[in-house]
């Protein structure tokens, strides 16, 4: 298994600013994912963070708005840029070791944009 931590756990931000969320895994993993979740609802995949290359974004999400870094096999960041109240949500990172079909999640970052 993998243990995943996220920072910050929550934040309240002003519109127009940016927030970077950090995701740390306690072991090397091949794939890391970033999701968004509205309270009480399901998860929507934002992008897959690839080590050594650009992230792969899902439809409706763009790099300028959600830049992602993956500098090594245990760490990734997601930035929410030029925030608006519509960006208020829970942001989750997850990790999977190669070929296991097993995905482990961090505790999430609850973001409120005023």
């Amino acid at each position, binding site marked *: 298994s993998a243990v995943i931590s996220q920072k910050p756990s929550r934040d309240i931000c002003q519109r127009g600013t940016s927030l970077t969320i950090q995701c740390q895994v306690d072991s090397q993993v091949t794939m890391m994912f970033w999701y968004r979740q509205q309270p009480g609802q*399901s998860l929507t*995949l934002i992008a*897959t963070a690839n080590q050594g290359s650009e992230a792969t974004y899902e439809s409706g999400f763009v790099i300028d708005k959600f830049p992602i870094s993956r500098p090594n096999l245990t760490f990734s960041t997601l930035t929410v840029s030029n925030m608006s109240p519509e960006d208020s949500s829970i942001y989750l990172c*997850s990790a999977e070791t190669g070929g296991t*079909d*097993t*995905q482990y*999640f961090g*505790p*999430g970052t609850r973001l409120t944009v005023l």
Partner: protein
Amino acid sequence: TQLLEQSPQFLSIQEGENLTVYCNSSSVFSSLQWYRQEPGEGPVLLVTVVTGGEVKKLKRLTFQFGDARKDSSLHITAAQPGDTGLYLCAGRFSGTYKYIFGTGTRLKVLA
């Protein structure tokens, strides 16, 4: 667009009752996971199924993967208040690396 439909969306039952949650798609999964999520926490993996017809048990929880690998079910026997939470299925479709999450089932077990 690949979709995972879960039913029911909401479920409120009394302690001791049994329940079943369904996860359905029109596409074939290469693997499917079930998660439970509690407020303020990330989803916690309950089980992964990969073989059509597979049945896995985790204490009072029984997971079944359809023979055609297009559907799955989660059955809880003698539900307890500690089973309360959001249950999510997530499927990985053949030829892809990403997971698609189901619409979710919010379960509340009353003491």
